[in-house]
């Protein structure tokens, strides 16, 4: 590992590692913020024919003027080839099973890839529902993507409070209780294929569906990742170092991230 100051940020590494998961030609759905940057980075770099859409139904667009403020922002409405609607994008193209891959974020994620974006409670919610101490953004379209997309990539900052043994509230399902519990619900989508963080990449064990450490970055290490994960994180026998961003990758990412959203921390 280089001891000199990094030429890129942890967030940029996370976005590039996420983008590398996307393949040319795939039908893909991105949320706002980080996930959009990762997706459009892939399009600008190695997946020019990716078929991207937003959940409100914006097709054929690439952002202008920097990171869009939202998925219906004018920054992503200035060069679209089709505007439709939510039933179309999230229903006809995601819930139907047509969408290959989706990227979602998480406030909290657990060892089976279940995501909480709804709220932070002091302790368990209990049998009687009560409002959270801190209300977050709700599920949005992420639940629909988690149920319907062929595979799902979860992007999340790697901090202990975000990595729980079990999330307090499942906003978007991963593998639920692990094993084959997901099959009980007949979701057409395959579930999360990776949790990509600011420190490394976790992937599910094929049988138990428990997420384990698959790779770390040139600037992170296994112990650091374990100490930032609030469950007994298993390490894959195949664990390896993720290659650093190339010059071309950084160039492509920073072209998409014109306003430097990923370089602020």
């Amino acid at each position: 590992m280089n001891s000199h100051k990094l030429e890129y940020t942890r967030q940029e590494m996370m976005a590039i590692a996420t983008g590398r998961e996307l393949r040319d030609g795939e039908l893909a759905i991105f949320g706002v913020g980080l996930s959009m940057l990762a997706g459009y980075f892939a399009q600008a770099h190695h997946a020019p024919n990716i078929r991207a859409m937003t959940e409100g139904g914006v097709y054929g667009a690439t952002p202008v003027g920097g990171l869009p403020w939202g998925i219906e922002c004018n920054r992503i409405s200035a060069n679209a080839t089709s505007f439709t609607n939510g039933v179309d994008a999230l229903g006809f193209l995601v819930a139907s099973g047509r969408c290959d891959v989706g990227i979602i974020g998480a406030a909290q994620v657990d060892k089976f890839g279940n995501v909480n974006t709804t709220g932070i409670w002091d302790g368990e919610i209990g049998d009687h529902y009560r409002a959270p101490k801190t209300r977050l953004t709700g599920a949005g379209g992420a639940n629909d993507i988690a149920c319907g997309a062929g595979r799902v990539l979860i992007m999340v900052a790697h901090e202990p409070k975000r990595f729980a043994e079990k999330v307090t509230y499942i906003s978007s399902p991963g593998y639920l209780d692990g094993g084959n519990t997901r099959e009980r619900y007949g979701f057409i989508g395959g579930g999360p294929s990776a949790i990509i963080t600011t420190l490394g990449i976790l992937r599910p064990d094929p049988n138990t569906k428990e997420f384990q450490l698959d790779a770390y970055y040139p600037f992170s290490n296994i112990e650091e990742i374990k100490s930032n994960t609030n469950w007994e994180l298993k390490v894959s026998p195949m664990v390896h170092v993720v290659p650093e961003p190339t010059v071309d990758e950084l160039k492509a990412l920073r072209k998409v991230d014109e306003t430097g959203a990923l370089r602020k921390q």
Partner: protein
Amino acid sequence: MPQPKLISLATAVDRFTQNGVQYASGAALPIGSDTIVFGRELLRQGRNQLHAIFHCNSQQLNLLAGAGAVDKAECGFSGLEVFGFANGLRRAVETGVTQLEDYSNLAMAIRLLGGAMNWPFVPATVNIGSDIQYRSAFSPEEYPSTSKIPMITDPFSGRQLGAFQSLQPEVAAIHVSMADPLGNAIMLGTEWSRFELSRAAKKVILVADEIVHTDCIRQFPNLVRIPDIVVDAIVYWPFAAWPQSSPGLYDVDEDHMRSMNKALATEETTQQYLKDYVFSYQSHRDYLDMIGSEKREKITQTETSFLMDPYRKWILSADEIAKLVLEGDR
């Protein structure tokens, strides 16, 4: 013969809403087109105990909830995307002022689709297996909930599906880029669920940034996703979505998005916001002055303005519109 349906904003709120009304906003959510000015007028006329049905949160729900006017809300996404958490809604939920029933964004859209079809429910395999299904803010004692999204069996395959209760809001205010005086409307940008909502709601009020001649509508009938026959009234209000955006017309006002959300974080600063930006204007002219000419100049320099080009020659003048509104308000 269809008749012009233009009325003033004040008349629309007075005529179509009352305390406790089930009110839906038609928008490109959460930070795009929205009838935010309709929400301001609801507060100006003292409407409260609202049951808000928003596909997603927006600054409108953020404002209404922050002002304490929303008892119940149903929505998918409840934040403000890159502008962060919705402080007004969040405060109302955390303090128990607003009961927020969570769904996903597809769930809200298909519930409106079900309302439009007059079906009792719509089946789907989203939201099931998660706490969106198991937890209900409207029936908090029921856990796991079996009444919010009950499981049903597909009579053909035997497969288990979730049943989503249809929505038919009592009144909807739907933001459109342009409408003719009869209520035929064109939306630029994504519709989200405005198409479904226009057929699901019992009363439909359009809030339009521009009014165009019916010749424009006849030139682009395929783009007219909301025809006059489902519309009860039209309100003409340029910059109706401010500080949010309206594709083809104006960009998001980034400064006000932030300062508004910051103000809604506390009761005290919300009162100041209401004084400065809700109760402060007496006319549309005042409203434009409140936004400021420099700011309007800036946000109308949008990269999307070419989207309006095909329609510009049919835009009616403010004087022509004013005459129609006078007749409509009678």
